[in-house]
C-alpha cells in the first residue's frame, strides 16, 4: 500500500474535484482519493503506478507538468505524420526480454512493426501509434521506456524540409519568369501587346492567357489560397496583395481578349506578362529571403549544435554509451579528452581543462578538478574526468541559455511598436489606396481610362510591402541577441537592447564585479634571514585546517608554489585576531598587528605593511616565538581586465561609479587601481537600490552591474541590470542582461551590440517606411502629372521582392559586427559591420 501525492492545477470547484476522482479511480490499483483544492494537490492511496496516475491526471486536464509522466516532454514533438519512433528501453537484460517487449509493442494499436535492439537498448517502432501508448505498453510489460528524441535527426529533417521549400520557390521563379520574360521581351522589342478583335491575335492572346492562368494556378497557388483563407477570417496579408494584383491584371487582360468590344480600342492592351513576372519575381524574393533568414538564426543553431548526443555513463560497474536524454541526475559520467560535456555536473575524479568559450565567450580554458562544476556543451581539452550529473535535460545551463535566447529573439524593443501598429492595418489600407487611385485615374486621368486604372491599382497592390515593415525589427533583434550570446551576453528582452543603447551611467558593484570576489595572496614579505617560501610554508601550515577565506587564499598560494604544509599541534583560532600553533617546538602566530603587539611580539616590516594597506590589501603578520618573521598581504584583487574594461566604458562617454559597503579608504584604493573616479563607499547592501534611484532622479540612465543575488534589488531598480557571473553558475534569470564570462568587458560589449542593433533596426525601419511611403504614391501615379511616368507592375514586383530581401540582408550585416573593434574605431558604436 502506497500513498501518491500529485500536484494539480486549474481545479477550482467541487465539479473539478469529482472529475479528477473519476479519472484517477479508473487507474488500476487506485484506492482512496482525496482532492485538496486549497493546496491544489491530490492524494491517492493504493498500489497504482505513479506514472499511470500522473498520466490519467494529465488526461483529465488538471495535471501539472511536474505530475506528468516523464515521457510527456517528448510527446510535445510528436511527428505529424507517421514515421518511425525510436524508444530507449531500460531494464532489458536478455533475449527473452526482447521478445516480451517486441510483443508488447506489437500489441499497441497502429503499430506495423516493432523491433528491439538489445545492444543499444533501443526499440524502433513503425506505424501510426502514439508514443505515449507505446511507453505504457512497455511499462506494463515490466520495463521502462522513453522516446529518443534525436535532436540531430530532427534538425536534419527540418533542414531538408526548408531546403525543399527553397527549391520549390526557385522552381516557381523559373515558371513565372519563363512565361513572363519572353512576353515582356516581345513587348520591349516592339511586338504588339494589344488585341485586334476578330484576328489571329485574339486566338494567340487567348493561348497566352491560358498559359498565364497555369502560372497563377500552379506557382501562384499559395498566394491565392492564402489570400482566400485570410479573407474568410476578415484578415488580409501579403498574399492578399499579390493575389489581387496578379488576379486583376489577368482578369483585365482576359476581358480584353475575350470581349475586345467592351474596351475602347486604345485600351486593348494585355498584361499577362505582368502577372507571370510578378509571381516569378516574388517567388524569387521569397527564396532569397529563406536563404538569408537561415543565417539570422545561426546563433541559436550554433548553441543547439553544442548539445552532446551520447554520454559515457558508469552504471552497474561498467561503462556504456547511452543517449544523452537517458542520463539522469546522479549518474556518474566519464568524459575523455576532446569530448563534450553531456550534462551539467560536478567533477568527482580527474583534472582537466575545459573550453567554456561557447557559453561564456571567455577564450581561456578553465582548469577543473574534483568539486568543480562542469556545464553541458563545454569541451574537454585536457585529461579524462568523471563527474556526477547534477542537472540534465532542460535544466542544464545550456538548455536554459538556448531557451532564453530563443525567447529573447522573439521580443521587440519599443522602437518596433509603430511598425507593428502600421502593419496591423497596412494591407486593407493599401487596398483602399488602390481603389482610390483607380477612381482618380478614371475621373481625372488621360484616355484610355481603363488600362491606366488597371495599371495604377495593380502596381499599388504589388509594390506595397508589408513584409519589409514587419521584418525590420524582429530580424535585427534576432541577429543582435544571437550575436550577444556569442560573446557570453544573454539579453532577456528586446527592450533591454534599446535601453542599453542609451545608458549614460554605469554603477559597478565592487565585490565580485570589479574584484574577483574572493581574497588572494598578493604579497609575501620576509624579514631578514627568512625566505618568502619559508614564510609562506609556515603560514600555510597554520591555516591548513581552516575554512576561512583568508586561510584559503594562503593555502592556494602555497599550493601554487608547490609548498607542502608542515604538521602542527596545539592549533588555536582566536576570532578576530588570528591563529596560533606549535610548529617544530616553536609557537607560531599569524594574525593582525594589534593582537601580536598585545602578545608582546617584536614587530618588523611595519612600513611595507602600511604600503600593503594603501593598496587595499590586508596585512597578516607571521611571528615565530616573539619575533615577526614575515608579512602576508591578502586582498580581493581586481579582475585582470577590469581596468581595461572600465577604460572602454569611460571612452564611450559613460560615467562610471563604484558602489561598495567598504570603508572609504579601502574603496578608494580599489577604485584607483580600477581607474574609477567616483566612489560610493559605506553603502549598506539594502541601500544600493536607493543610490541607483537617486542617480535616476538626477536624470541619469543607469546600468547597475552586480552579482544578481545580493544586488538583485539594485539590478531591478536600474534602467538595465547586468548580472555578472563566473562561468556557467550565474543565475541567468536574475537580470535584464547576464554576462556569463564574469568580465566587465561584457558590459561594454553589450552596449556596443545594443547600439549596433538599434542602429540596424532604425535603418531597416527607415528603409521600410521610406520605401512604402514613396513607392505607393509613385505606383498610384503621383509623378504622372509632372513627368508622365507611370510605374509598370513588373517593376513594382521586382521592387517589392527586393525590399524584404534588403531588410533581411541588412540585419544579417550585424553578424559581422565586432564590439571590440567598434570601440577602438569610434566612440558611438556605429553600425559598421
Amino acid at each position, binding site marked *: 500500500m502506497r500513498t501518491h501525492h500529485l500536484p494539480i*492545477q*486549474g481545479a477550482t470547484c467541487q465539479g473539478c474535484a469529482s472529475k479528477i476522482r473519476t479519472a484517477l479511480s479508473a487507474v488500476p490499483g487506485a484506492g482512496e482519493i482525496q482532492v485538496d483544492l486549497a493546496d491544489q494537490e491530490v492524494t491517492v492511496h493504493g498500489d497504482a503506478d505513479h506514472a499511470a496516475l500522473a498520466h490519467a491526471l494529465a488526461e*483529465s*486536464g*488538471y495535471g501539472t*507538468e511536474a505530475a506528468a509522466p516523464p515521457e510527456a516532454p517528448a510527446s*510535445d*514533438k*510528436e*511527428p*505529424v*505524420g507517421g514515421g518511425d519512433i525510436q524508444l530507449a528501453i531500460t531494464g532489458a537484460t536478455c533475449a527473452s526480454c526482447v521478445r516480451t517487449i517486441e510483443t508488447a509493442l506489437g500489441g499497441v494499436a497502429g503499430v506495423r512493426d516493432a523491433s528491439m535492439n538489445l545492444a543499444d537498448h533501443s526499440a524502433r517502432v513503425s506505424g501510426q501509434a502514439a508514443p505515449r501508448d507505446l511507453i505504457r505498453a512497455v511499462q506494463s510489460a515490466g520495463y521502462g521506456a522513453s522516446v529518443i528524441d534525436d535532436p540531430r535527426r*530532427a534538425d536534419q*529533417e*527540418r533542414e531538408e*524540409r*526548408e531546403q*525543399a*521549400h527553397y527549391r520549390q520557390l526557385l522552381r516557381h521563379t523559373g515558371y513565372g519568369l519563363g512565361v513572363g520574360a519572353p512576353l515582356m521581351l516581345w513587348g520591349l522589342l516592339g511586338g504588339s501587346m494589344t488585341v485586334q478583335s476578330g484576328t489571329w491575335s485574339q486566338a494567340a492572346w487567348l493561348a497566352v492567357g491560358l498559359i498565364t492562368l497555369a502560372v497563377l494556378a500552379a506557382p501562384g497557388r*499559395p498566394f491565392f489560397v*492564402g*489570400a482566400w*483563407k*485570410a*479573407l*474568410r*477570417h*476578415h*484578415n488580409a*496579408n*501579403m*498574399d492578399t496583395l499579390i493575389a489581387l494584383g496578379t488576379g486583376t491584371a489577368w482578369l483585365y487582360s482576359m476581358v480584353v481578349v475575350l470581349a475586345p468590344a467592351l474596351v475602347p480600342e486604345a485600351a486593348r492592351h494585355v498584361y499577362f506578362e505582368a502577372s507571370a513576372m510578378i509571381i516569378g519575381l516574388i517567388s524569387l524574393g*521569397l527564396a532569397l*529571403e*529563406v536563404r538569408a*533568414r537561415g543565417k539570422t538564426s545561426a546563433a541559436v543553431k550554433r548553441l543547439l549544435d553544442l548539445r552532446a548526443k551520447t554520454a559515457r555513463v558508469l552504471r552497474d560497474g561498467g561503462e556504456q554509451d547511452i543517449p544523452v536524454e537517458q542520463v539522469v541526475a546522479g549518474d556518474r559520467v566519464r568524459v575523455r579528452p576532446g569530448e563534450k560535456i553531456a550534462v551539467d555536473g560536478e567533477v568527482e575524479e580527474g583534472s582537466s581543462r575545459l573550453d567554456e568559450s561557447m557559453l561564456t565567450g571567455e577564450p581561456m580554458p578553465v582548469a577543473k578538478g574534483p568539486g568543480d562544476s562542469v556545464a553541458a556543451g563545454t569541451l574537454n581539452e585536457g585529461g579524462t574526468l568523471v563527474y556526477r550529473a547534477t542537472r540534465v535535460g532542460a535544466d542544464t545551463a545550456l538548455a536554459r541559455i538556448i531557451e532564453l535566447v*530563443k*525567447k529573447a*529573439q*522573439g*521580443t*521587440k524593443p519599443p522602437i518596433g511598436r509603430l511598425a*507593428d501598429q502600421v*502593419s*496591423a*492595418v*497596412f494591407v*486593407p489600407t493599401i487596398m*483602399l489606396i488602390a*481603389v*482610390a487611385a483607380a*477612381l482618380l485615374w*478614371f475621373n481625372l486621368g488621360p484616355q484610355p481610362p481603363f488600362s491606366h486604372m488597371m495599371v495604377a491599382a495593380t502596381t499599388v497592390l504589388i509594390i506595397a510591402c*508589408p*513584409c519589409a515593415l*514587419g*521584418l525590420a525589427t*524582429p*530580424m535585427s533583434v534576432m541577429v543582435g541577441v544571437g550575436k550577444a550570446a556569442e560573446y557570453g551576453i544573454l539579453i532577456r*528582452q528586446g527592450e533591454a537592447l534599446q535601453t542599453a543603447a542609451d545608458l549614460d551611467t554605469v554603477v559597478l558593484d565592487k565585490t565580485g564585479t570589479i574584484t574577483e570576489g574572493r581574497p588572494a595572496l598578493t604579497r609575501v614579505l620576509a624579514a631578514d634571514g627568512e625566505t618568502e617560501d619559508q614564510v609562506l610554508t609556515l603560514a600555510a601550515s597554520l591555516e591548513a585546517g581552516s575554512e576561512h577565506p583568508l586561510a584559503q587564499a594562503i593555502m592556494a598560494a602555497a599550493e601554487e608554489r608547490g609548498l607542502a604544509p608542515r604538521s602542527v599541534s596545539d592549533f588555536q583560532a582566536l576570532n578576530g585576531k588570528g591563529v596560533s600553533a606549535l610548529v617544530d617546538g616553536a609557537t607560531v602566530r599569524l594574525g593582525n598587528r594589534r593582537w601580536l603587539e598585545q602578545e608582546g611580539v617584536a614587530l618588523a616590516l611595519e612600513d611595507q605593511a602600511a604600503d600593503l594597506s594603501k593598496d587595499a590589501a590586508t596585512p597578516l603578520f607571521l611571528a615565530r616565538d616573539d619575533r615577526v618573521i614575515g608579512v602576508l598581504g591578502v586582498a580581493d584583487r581586481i579582475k585582470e581586465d577590469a581596468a581595461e574594461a572600465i577604460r572602454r566604458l569611460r571612452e564611450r562617454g559613460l560615467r562610471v561609479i563604484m558602489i561598495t559597503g567598504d570603508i572609504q579608504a579601502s574603496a578608494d584604493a580599489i577604485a584607483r587601481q580600477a581607474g574609477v573616479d567616483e566612489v560610493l563607499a559605506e553603502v549598506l547592501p539594502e541601500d544600493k537600490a536607493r543610490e541607483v534611484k537617486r542617480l535616476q532622479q538626477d536624470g541619469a540612465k543607469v546600468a547597475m552591474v552586480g552579482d544578481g543575488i545580493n544586488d538583485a534589488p539594485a539590478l531591478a531598480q536600474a534602467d538595465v541590470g547586468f548580472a555578472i557571473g563566473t562561468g556557467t553558475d550565474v543565475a541567468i534569470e536574475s537580470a535584464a542582461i547576464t554576462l556569463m564570462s564574469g568580465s566587465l568587458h561584457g558590459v561594454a560589449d553589450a552596449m556596443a551590440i545594443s547600439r549596433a542593433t538599434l542602429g540596424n533596426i532604425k535603418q531597416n525601419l527607415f528603409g521600410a517606411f521610406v520605401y512604402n511611403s514613396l513607392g505607393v504614391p509613385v505606383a498610384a501615379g503621383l509623378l504622372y502629372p509632372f513627368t508622365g511616368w507611370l510605374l509598370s507592375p513588373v517593376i513594382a514586383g521586382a521592387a517589392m521582392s527586393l525590399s524584404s530581401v534588403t531588410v533581411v540582408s541588412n540585419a544579417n550585416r550585424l553578424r559581422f559586427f565586432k564590439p571590440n573593434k567598434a570601440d577602438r574605431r569610434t566612440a558611438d558604436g556605429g553600425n559598421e559591420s
Partner: protein
Amino acid sequence: MIWLINLSGLALMALIVWWFWLAGAGKARRATHGAVDIIVDDGVYEPAVIESNAGEPLTLRFERRDASPCAEQVVFHGLDVSEYLPVGETTTVTLTPEQPGTYRFTCQMNMYQGKLIVH
C-alpha cells in the same frame, strides 16, 4: 456609366473597411481544459481567436504546416511569450495570462494574426 463606376468603386472601398475592420472576426475557440490545437497554414491561424480566463494556464498546440519562413515564430504581444514553430511539427506553448484583455498573437511580420481574449 461614369457614375456607375465611381459608385461601385466607393462601394468597394466601403466593403473593404467593413469586412476587414468592422465586421466581427472569426468564431472564438474557447479553451477546453486549458488546451487548444491551432493549425498554422496558408497565412492564417486556425482557429484565430482563442478565449480563456485570467489566471488559468493555457496550452496552445501550434501545428505548423506552412513552410514559408513567415510562419516560423509566433509572438504573443503584451505577454512576453514567443516560440519557434518548426515546420511539420506540433509545438506546445503554455502561458498563464494574468490580466483580462485582448492580446494579439502574430508571426514576426504580423501577417499571421490571431487574438487571445482573456476574460
